[in-house]
């Protein structure tokens, strides 16, 4: 249990550091939001009055503290440029990015685990070579390149889907999800290739352990050995890798949303950085970081479930 508490503590610290880093990064960016909102020819008095209303005249740490408190209460503040509550602006967009990431992550897991096991068990050298080459090839495909090609191929040539018509899930779950399938796949392909490669080598190294020979001496078939013993041990490094991939997919959505014109967090993040809309940027970055840290935490929990020794260390 002590290990769990320590992990949670680490998680909290990492989160705090992220929010602090974001906050400081935004102070450093040139371009003062007030001039942006009032325009260049605003009088000094108007600017000062707005600055106090937004609390920008407080020292950085006080502002950070106040922002953190209100964020924890679920209110990420008011957007500077759109003067709408940030939560209002995010609501449609957050679920889009989250679903896109979850879909892509699920695809990665569903593609790579079975394939990894299959390739690890195949004895013939030719099959191994084939899979290794496919791994290398898919790993080298950048998501946005696949995206462009598939938008062109499926969107414009084959007209399987209409780019730019993302219908929010609230309206038609099938339509929305259907649209997200392709972008999710574009991100999932290179990820799964890496996971397959890793899972295969992890299984291979487990199969070379002493206890596998003992199990064979008890009359177990190879597949029994794999499923009862080797696979479990092999999963530990893969689970950590998958959690890391989930984080990379999340940040990857920023580009894929651009290629497939999906109104997710990515596009809003880019434009609000441009317009120095700190509350929006802050909220998005922190949400992304929370997601990343949560998934890593889930991976730690699962690894603890698999390997009792981790529980004790």
């Amino acid at each position: 249990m002590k290990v769990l508490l320590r992990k949670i503590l680490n998680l909290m610290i990492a989160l705090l550091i992220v929010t602090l880093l974001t906050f400081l990064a935004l102070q450093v960016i040139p371009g003062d939001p007030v001039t942006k909102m009032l325009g260049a020819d605003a009088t000094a008095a108007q600017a000062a009055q707005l600055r106090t209303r937004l609390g920008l005249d407080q020292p950085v740490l006080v502002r950070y503290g106040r922002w953190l408190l209100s964020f924890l209460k679920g209110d990420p503040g008011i957007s500077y440029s759109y003067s709408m509550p940030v939560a209002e602006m995010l609501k449609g967009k957050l679920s889009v990015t989250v679903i896109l990431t979850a879909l892509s992550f699920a695809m990665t897991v569903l593609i790579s685990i079975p394939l990894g096991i299959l390739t690890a068990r195949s004895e013939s050298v030719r099959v191994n070579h084939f899979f290794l080459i496919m791994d290398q090839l898919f790993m080298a495909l950048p998501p946005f390149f696949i995206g462009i090609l598939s938008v062109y191929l499926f969107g414009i040539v084959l007209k399987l889907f209409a780019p730019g018509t993302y219908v929010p899930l609230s309206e038609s779950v099938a339509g929305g999800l259907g649209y997200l399938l392709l972008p999710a796949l574009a991100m999932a392909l290179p990820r799964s290739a890496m996971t397959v490669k890793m899972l295969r080598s992890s299984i291979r190294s487990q199969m070379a352990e002493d206890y596998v020979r003992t199990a064979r001496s008890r009359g177990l078939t190879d597949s029994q050995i794999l499923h009862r013993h080797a696979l479990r041990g092999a999963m530990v490094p893969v689970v950590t890798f998958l959690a890391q991939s989930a984080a990379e997919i999340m940040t990857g959505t920023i580009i894929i949303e651009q290629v497939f014109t999906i109104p997710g967090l990515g596009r809003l993040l880019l434009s609000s950085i441009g317009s120095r809309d700190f509350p929006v940027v802050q909220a998005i970055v922190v949400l992304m970081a929370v997601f990343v840290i949560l998934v890593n935490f889930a991976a730690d929990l699962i690894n603890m479930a698999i390997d009792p020794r981790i529980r004790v260390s």
Partner: protein
Amino acid sequence: MKIRKNGFLKTGEIMSLVLATVIVTGFFWTPYGTTAMNAAEKTLPPSLHHLLGTDNFGRDVFSRVISGAGTSFLIALGVVAVGCIGGVLIGSLCGYFGGIADAVLMRVCDAITAFPAILLALVVVSLFGGGMANILLCLGLLFIPSFARVVRTEVARVRDMNYIQSARLMGVSTGRILLRHILPNTFPVLLPAVTIGFNNAVLAEASMSFLGVGIQPPQASLGSMLKDSQTYLNTAPWYALGTGGMIVLLVLAVSLLSEGIQQGTGRGQV
């Protein structure tokens, strides 16, 4: 450490050799000027004159792809170097000494990995402008955690080995133990990290230029070229395929080479 020949190594070597020569020549000479425009030759299909055809300004796509590959190659190399050096430094310190320094640095690394790379890139670009050096610096910073983690685990493992104990007994200084005794043992672990790092660096640079945050025109960058080529997918598909193809080749060559080396030293998997 002798490396046995195998399929991967050979293909990887050939591809990297060809690419390297093409890119290096690209720095000094390209069939056409990378920015030379020619109104008469707009969006020509690939031909002997223009191996990859021309773009909407009549510029030779092949020359631009080579010089773009050159830029990406240099940045990726720089990023991996920065990431590697930073990673090895932090990794060995944390791995060897542990304690508070280790806990703090590792938490910062966790935070950096959780940070969306694009935001950091934008901060750097808006502060210092979009030149190659800034992108290299900012991406390099982002790659340090992955190297640090790999090196830290390896250094921690090697730190308690008998040959390190005996080195201590002999009176070898801690610095020298770290540098000359422990680090050489982390190289086999570093190679895969460097490869993955290189691939991610090429992709990250291309993505940033794709978003208009990375390398600014007129300097040729694979990412920005890919973005511009989107519009001409219908009338000039070779523009997108050529650029995207080069990115894939660049990444494939390096990963094949590293896979080959790992196979050769028996550390790869069958």
